[in-house]
């Protein structure tokens, strides 16, 4: 392997990693605050995608459609919290999981009924497919954009969580929800905030995901939530830092397999990647960063 290819693959892995890290952070945010896995998270990407699809269809430029899609993702995330999870406050882990599962199916079917059962193509700006030369390296523009947007969003989220009063409350709630309430933080507000942030991250990830894929379909949310789920479990459920690390690790495993596997085994890349993940979990059942609250 030449150094050029290696650098290109590294950029690929980093760009995929920042996307996975975003996905994982959005899912992990709600998990760490509420202790629940939101299976409808993937559908936030779907909603974002279809909003963009419809807007582009009527002639709205790509970036504007992306912003509106982002807004829709936040709105739907808050809506799900209000309609599904708030009535179930205090229910068991499994109940909440099933409820989110049901919410995801409802959204999928709404899209099937209101728009279409079949996948639709989204015209992506042509710039995305071009290559640019940086020194001796040829790099795909889209990978670079994803890497940049991903890192900027991650940095923005970290700054929000570290520097603001609400960010502090979210981090405290991730540690101990009851004591956070004792400190005067309103439970519903903290939870709604975590859902809004989760929707925001899903929206950003959705725009990037669509730019890679160039098409929308009602079940397109399954793969992103799967990746996010795997990433937060590798990272250690409940740890926000772990979610980001898990996302990057998963991307590196996938890109490495893609490069190293012989052509005949390429369809099984996902299977191999998951096998490696299961082996990691077998050795570290609590994930990379294990959470231990207090003593």
């Amino acid at each position, binding site marked *: 392997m030449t150094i050029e290819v290696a650098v290109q693959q590294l950029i690929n892995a980093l760009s995929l990693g920042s996307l996975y890290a975003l996905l994982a952070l959005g899912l992990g945010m709600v998990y760490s605050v509420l202790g629940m896995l939101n299976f409808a998270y993937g559908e936030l990407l779907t909603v974002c995608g279809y909003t963009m699809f419809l807007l582009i269809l009527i002639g709205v430029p790509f970036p504007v459609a992306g912003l509106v899609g982002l807004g829709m993702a936040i709105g739907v995330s808050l809506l799900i919290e209000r309609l599904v999870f708030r009535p179930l406050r205090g229910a068991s882990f499994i109940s909440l999981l099933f409820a989110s599962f049901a919410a995801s199916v409802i959204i999928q079917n709404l899209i099937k009924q209101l728009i279409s059962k079949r996948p639709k193509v989204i015209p992506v700006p042509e710039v995305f497919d071009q290559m640019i030369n940086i020194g001796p390296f040829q790099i795909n523009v889209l990978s670079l954009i994803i890497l940049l947007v991903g890192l900027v969003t991650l940095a923005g989220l970290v700054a929000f969580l570290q520097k603001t*009063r609400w960010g*502090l*409350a979210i*981090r*405290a709630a*991730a*540690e*101990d929800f*009851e*004591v*956070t*309430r*004792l*400190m*005067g*933080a*309103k*439970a519903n507000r903290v939870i709604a905030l975590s859902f809004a942030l989760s929707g925001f991250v899903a929206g950003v990830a959705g725009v990037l995901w669509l730019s890679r894929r160039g098409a929308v379909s009602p079940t397109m949310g399954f793969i992103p939530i799967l990746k996010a789920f795997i990433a937060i479990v590798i990272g250690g459920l409940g740890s926000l830092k772990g979610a980001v690390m898990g996302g990057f690790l998963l991307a590196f495993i996938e890109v490495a397999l893609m490069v190293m596997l012989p052509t005949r085994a390429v369809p099984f890349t996902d299977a191999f990647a998951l096998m490696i993940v299961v082996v990691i979990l077998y050795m570290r059942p609590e994930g990379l960063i294990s*959470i*231990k*609250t*207090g*003593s």
Partner: protein
Amino acid sequence: MNCHPATGLKNHVWRRYYCSWFLISIDREILSEGQGFVTSSKNANRNQGVFIVMTGDGLYQKVKISGQEKHMLNISGLTSGYGPVEVLHGLSLYINKGEIVAVIGPNGAGKSTLLKTIVGLISPQNGSILFQDRSIERQPPEYVLDRGIALVPEGRRVFAGLTVLENLHMGAYLERDSSRKKKQIDYIYDLFPRLEERHQQLSGTLSGGEQQQLAIARALMSRPKMLLLDEPSLGLAPVIVEVVIDLINSLRKEGLTIILVEQNIHQALEISDRAYVLVNGSIRMSGSASQLLETGVDMEKAYLGEKI
């Protein structure tokens, strides 16, 4: 149906107040005095206004209340628990301003449930909680905290992944004025120099005693009028327990009212003014701390569940 049965007054919102002491007088003649529920109109001045009182025989009378609320916190007929499980069975107690009151009792007596109900983490099934004449039962924790009651939860429960300073900031979550927050942090650092040394350290890496200090400091950040301490000596070495006790004593000198929940009877009674013995969700004994210390034998019986 806003017309009151006794007075015929219309368009008044009627409220029930629990009065620790009231005087019913009509035309300067004292009819009765005592403790109980008083119904009044919303706008009445609670200390001197005209009240409508439901007397024992179910009749309403127009009355005048005199005298002042004596107690800072007044709990009466409190029934509370988790879901269908009732842990506290109609207990009543009061705390005066500036007192340290110990609530002692064996494991599972409902001590922590009592504190959680006071601060609003649990909504009581029945009964009333009055704090400085305001009813705080069924209010969310942020309301109770804003009124001036802060809880130091059992087992310290500092935010382990946050730094000491971030923990203190969380404690002052409701305070939006950053200069006041800063002042309060300086005050806390005066009180706990150890925390200032370690303000950038993750609080999960502190020792048990330091974590307890941090938990108390965090609660003090909201400038409470009353502090509830749930088993502050739990899991601490005896030397460190001494430090915590000294701290509680110095807080009392600053005028803080304290409810101290403990399993360790003697230590709790030594520093408190009065005490309640809570067994199986109801008050088994109460009195001044010195009194209870003398009747140590009876207390052991109460602990073992014998009827006294």
